[in-house]
């Protein structure tokens, strides 16, 4: 549905996007995961034809060029910067943007009601956007993106500055859209979101894609081993064989088969106070790929 080849964009001496390739299949939810400044937003802007790439190509559904208005009509975008008119109500924002997508009359009214309904903004539809909370604005930002029923949805960090309740609401909306067959490209710097929502994830840093696969495959390939952490009641007596590294009463075991390790510990006669299994996650993938943590990158 989306095919990106050798995409490149520079701002002066800074290379924001440096040869990005990926393909998103129809109906797939695809994640671009990377820290701030990785080049996610720049990539999205090139995907919708707002930015002209310095090199490379973007093709939508066959050979559609997003520089053409007719191709853009099929795409819905929720920009990272809240793109809403603060002095308009939710209703007025939706009506205005709906009209730009050629909706009129009854179909416009239906689209507005539907968008307000799924995002749970009906009660506040006539209030000015400037009176909304951050979460409500994000929900409206999504409502505007989906109101014209696009087949492709580009969501640029749609949960930034959102309370947990709104975040869940947004996730449910996105999952529902995906279930209806919408192709979703989702950028984020929260690995939990990518893990929960995305079929495949591209790890992005400094304008490049470092790895691209399903979440499980990424973890298998780059996540490293699982960790079993245990707290002992008392230090083990001399001569007892202890796996992993022991530090006082804290035990840490790196292992590919964590549950076998737990069983082994349980049978070893050691008195355990607590025992935790940590599977590697996308955070560990990023750490292993870049040497930095996603959070402080």
């Amino acid at each position: 549905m989306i095919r990106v080849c050798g995409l490149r964009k520079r701002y002066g001496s800074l290379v924001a996007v440096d040869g990005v390739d990926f393909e998103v299949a129809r109906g797939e939810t695809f994640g671009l995961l990377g820290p701030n400044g990785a080049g996610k937003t720049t990539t999205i802007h090139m995907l919708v034809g707002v930015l002209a790439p310095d090199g490379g190509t973007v093709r939508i559904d066959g050979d559609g060029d997003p520089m053409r208005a007719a191709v853009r009509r099929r795409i819905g975008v929720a920009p990272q910067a809240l793109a809403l008119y603060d002095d308009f109500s939710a209703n007025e924002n939706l009506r205005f943007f709906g009209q730009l997508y050629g909706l009129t009359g009854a179909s416009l009214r239906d689209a507005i009601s539907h968008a307000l309904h799924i995002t749970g903004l009906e009660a506040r539809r006539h209030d000015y956007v400037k009176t909304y909370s951050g979460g409500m604005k994000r929900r409206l930002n999504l409502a505007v993106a989906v109101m014209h029923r696009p087949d492709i949805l580009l969501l640029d960090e749609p949960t930034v500055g959102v309370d947990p309740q709104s975040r869940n609401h947004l996730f449910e909306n996105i999952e529902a859209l995906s279930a209806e067959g919408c192709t979703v490209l989702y950028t984020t710097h929260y690995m939990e979101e990518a893990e929960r929502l995305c079929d495949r994830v591209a790890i992005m840093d400094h304008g490049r894609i470092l790895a691209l696969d399903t979440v499980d495959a990424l973890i298998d390939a780059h996540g490293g081993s699982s960790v079993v952490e245990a707290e002992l009641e008392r230090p083990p007596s001399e001569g007892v064989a202890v796996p992993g590294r022991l530090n006082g009463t804290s035990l840490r075991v790196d292992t590919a088969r964590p549950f076998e390790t737990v069983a082994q510990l349980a049978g070893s006669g050691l008195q355990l106070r607590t025992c935790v299994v940590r599977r590697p996650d996308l955070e560990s993938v990023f750490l292993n790929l870049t040497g930095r943590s996603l959070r402080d990158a």
Partner: protein
Amino acid sequence: MRTVWTLAKKDLLLLVRDRFGMFWVLVFPLLQATFFGAIFSGQGRGAGQISIAVVDEDRSEESRGLIERLKKSKSLTVFESNRESAATDVRRGKRVAYVAIRKGFGESSRIFMPASAELEVGIDPSRQAEAGYLQGLLMEASFGGIQQTFANPQKMQAQIRKSAEEVAAADDIPASQKAIFQFFFGAMEQFVTKLDPELFKQGAAIAPAKIESVAVRREGRSPRSSFEITFPAAMLWGVIGCTAGFAVSLVTERKSGTLLRLRVAPLTRRDVLAGKAVACCAACVGIIVLLIVLGRLVFGVRVDRPGMLAIAAMCTALCFVGLSMFISVLGRSEQGVAGASWALLLICAMLGGGMVPLIAMPGWMLRMSSVSPVKWGVYALEGAIWRDFSPAEMAMPCAILLAVGAVLFSLGVAINRRIDR
């Protein structure tokens, strides 16, 4: 086209909702127009008074009486003069009108023999409001004369007798008719001697003097009131408010991300800019029309040439659309553009007659003012309102406005395109 209008409507609605924006677009210009208009109008003749010249060609007791009554009217300033200089004063716009009391006015005050027309009012045909008002005042004043006549039975008796003699002497009235008149006059004479004079002092419905209007075209190009100077300037202030508002709104849209959303929508870049331009233009024309209507209804500002005004307003609006587009690229932030726009626009306004009226500028200042598009806007609007421009005269300011607008618009669009790349 519908898309452009959708975009423009959105911008106009946002403008109306922006209190600060509306202050500069509407409230400030209106204050300016009324405040300075009122100050200047206090200087010359008394405010709200119509200044007229009176020519007494009758030199009768009745004509003196009429003049005295006119002088007593609070809404008139009366200057006595001769016919020639009275007409000249009206042509030059020094007096609103002249009233000539023709020979025979006193005679015809006899009740039943109204002569052709005893009063002549010379006034510019465009001044319908004053003409009507003056007519009313004259009726009242001359009617006052009739009242006096009725209130004086002896005088009336004498006049009836004189009328009877005239009818008898007339050779164009058939004898049968003459008999009827004689009978009527006899009865009338009997009647008036028995009248209670007090009754007529309270007023009765009797036809007043006949008034003939003579068209005296004002040839001088001078404003009829100070409001006709302050309102065109105020229109430019309003237009400036719109210009600044729209320049900033483009940056606001870029910063807030809504411009991104517009560009993601299935529109062309041209649609987006055209929407802004149409909205700005409509706002400029709108404020001009609004001020014209207010000026007309409340302050008596009149438009000599409405067609020309439409052209002048359109050219002014288009020029400032271009200026707005240009200003929008003078800064990257909203504050930057707002600062740049007000700095530039205030200079244009000061130079161009927004503060010192063009008509009051010394020669050197007037020459300098030509660099400001504000001057050409004021000039074109005044041309339609009171300067009485011919199409050829109107062509120059309009051509300048359009040319400046076109150049600035292209520049602005080109730079805008580079910013969004």
